[in-house]
């Protein structure tokens, strides 16, 4: 009982941290008025996280997988991380194509003078009156890190629920709800838009992690209680 409880608590904290890495510009980004992907934090993180959750669940259902074997657990978590990264990488790439060829803007970040990864100057490429647009390399890499963490968090929660004896169906539904809960908590902490790990808002990440840690611990206690009663 103790190990799944710890796993659920950690999973919540990881999911919350993951959302802070994903570059989302919210509604303004849909008009190329701010940097990042043009949708909401919770929505995009959940879309990527659920793809990872399904990849982890498919791996966990393979014949011969033993949930008490650390190597098998690592494989499940990595599968979740990679599934989630594929989803977000392709979404950011194809979104980028629309920004560049459909809207005609240059990918540019507003929260840094130079891209910390490529060293490219950003400010002079930003349309006047906007706070950047599209997905420059630093945002893309940050998004990949967030997706990997999201997949690991979702997979870890699913494994913990399976270890508590829930069927795949019930574990899947609880994991989806659990993911949403922590993604929404992170979204409150972010407050709308974030460009990635180079954004000053990213420094608020400890608050989000603490909030999710407490909420996930409480959820874990309830879930363990459910498993005893079931």
């Amino acid at each position: 009982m103790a190990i799944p409880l710890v796993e659920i608590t950690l999973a919540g904290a990881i999911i919350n941290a993951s959302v802070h890495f994903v570059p989302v510009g919210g509604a303004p980004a849909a008009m190329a008025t701010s940097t990042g992907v043009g949708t909401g934090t919770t929505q995009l993180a959940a879309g990527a996280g659920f793809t990872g959750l399904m990849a982890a669940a498919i791996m966990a259902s393979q014949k011969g997988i033993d949930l008490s074997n650390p190597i098998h657990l690592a494989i499940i978590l990595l599968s979740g991380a990679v599934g989630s990264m594929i989803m977000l990488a392709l979404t950011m790439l194809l979104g980028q194509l629309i920004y560049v060829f459909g809207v005609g803007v240059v990918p540019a970040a507003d929260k840094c003078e130079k891209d910390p990864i490529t060293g490219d100057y950003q400010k002079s490429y930003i349309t006047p009156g906007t706070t950047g647009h599209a997905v420059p390399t630093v945002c893309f890499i940050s998004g990949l890190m967030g997706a990997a963490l999201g997949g690991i968090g979702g997979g870890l929660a699913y494994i913990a629920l399976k270890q508590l004896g829930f069927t795949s169906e019930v574990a899947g539904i609880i994991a989806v709800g659990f993911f949403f809960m922590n993604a929404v908590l992170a979204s409150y902490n972010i407050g709308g838009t974030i460009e990635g790990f180079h954004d000053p808002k990213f420094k608020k990440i400890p608050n989000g992690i603490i909030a999710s840690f407490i909420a996930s611990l409480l959820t874990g206690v309830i879930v363990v209680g459910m498993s005893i009663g079931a």
Partner: protein
Amino acid sequence: MDPTLLVLGALALSGAAATVAGCAEDLESDVGSQSNPNSQVQLGPQMGNIHRYFNKAISGEPVSYGLYVAAAGAVAWALLNMGLNVPIALIIGSGIAAFVHGAYSVSSYLGRIVGQSQNFGQPVYMDVVLSHLGPIVGHGFIAVFCMLLAAYLATSVLGNPFPLPLVALIFGITVGAIGSSTGDVHYGAEREYQKYPFGGGVPVANQGDIDIKAEYGIRNGMDSSYFCSKLGGPLTGLTFGLIIFLDGWRGIIGEIVGGDLVSKSIIAIVVGIVIVAIAAYLNRMVEVYARKKYGPYTDR
């Protein structure tokens, strides 16, 4: 038949269905003006732009599509368990979801527009409701049916352990997140603001100043759908199709090349990382191309 071939065929069909679903979903959100760009349609009358766009941001696109596809999946799941054959169960499930979609669309349009009528003079155009409802529900039906087909293949052939309604819910949320992130940008940043020169984001000061004239006559949602079907819709479909196909394909590669369970899984993970690395490289190439082609602003 070789089971690997069967799985590969199911995966290809699933990827094709996902591609059609993604495209139809994005075009539906353009006809009906859903998601983030609809904030501008909502803002238009307040800026003096009386328009004939449909207006139905029922909720975030992922949540609303999660609802439709899960509703369709739940009905289909029940019918399958009653012994009905698969195609008919999927079609009836998608049909029920289409009614749910239509009901939400009408109530959303009337509620949103009436809320703006008194203060900003935006009329309720009943002909807009009647003419747009068919394309909205039609595109929605295609999107939901294709996702439900992909979800059915995932649960029956591709080894997904979740029940059909849960996979349908997850696919609906994922396709909504993709449509909102990719295709909607073409509608929000370009189509709604075509009167401004091509090649820039929309400054905050111009927001709400949407185009109300079409190429011929007064613009409506169907004009937007026609325009976005040239780039936004197909790329949204391609995104969802590639995600479904490549995520499954890496597992099949592992299955063919690997020996025991651990080596198969590691190969699948490595193939996945290679796919992600290629996407990151292509993203950088597009970024470099745009910087060279469009250049910096020199007249600040």
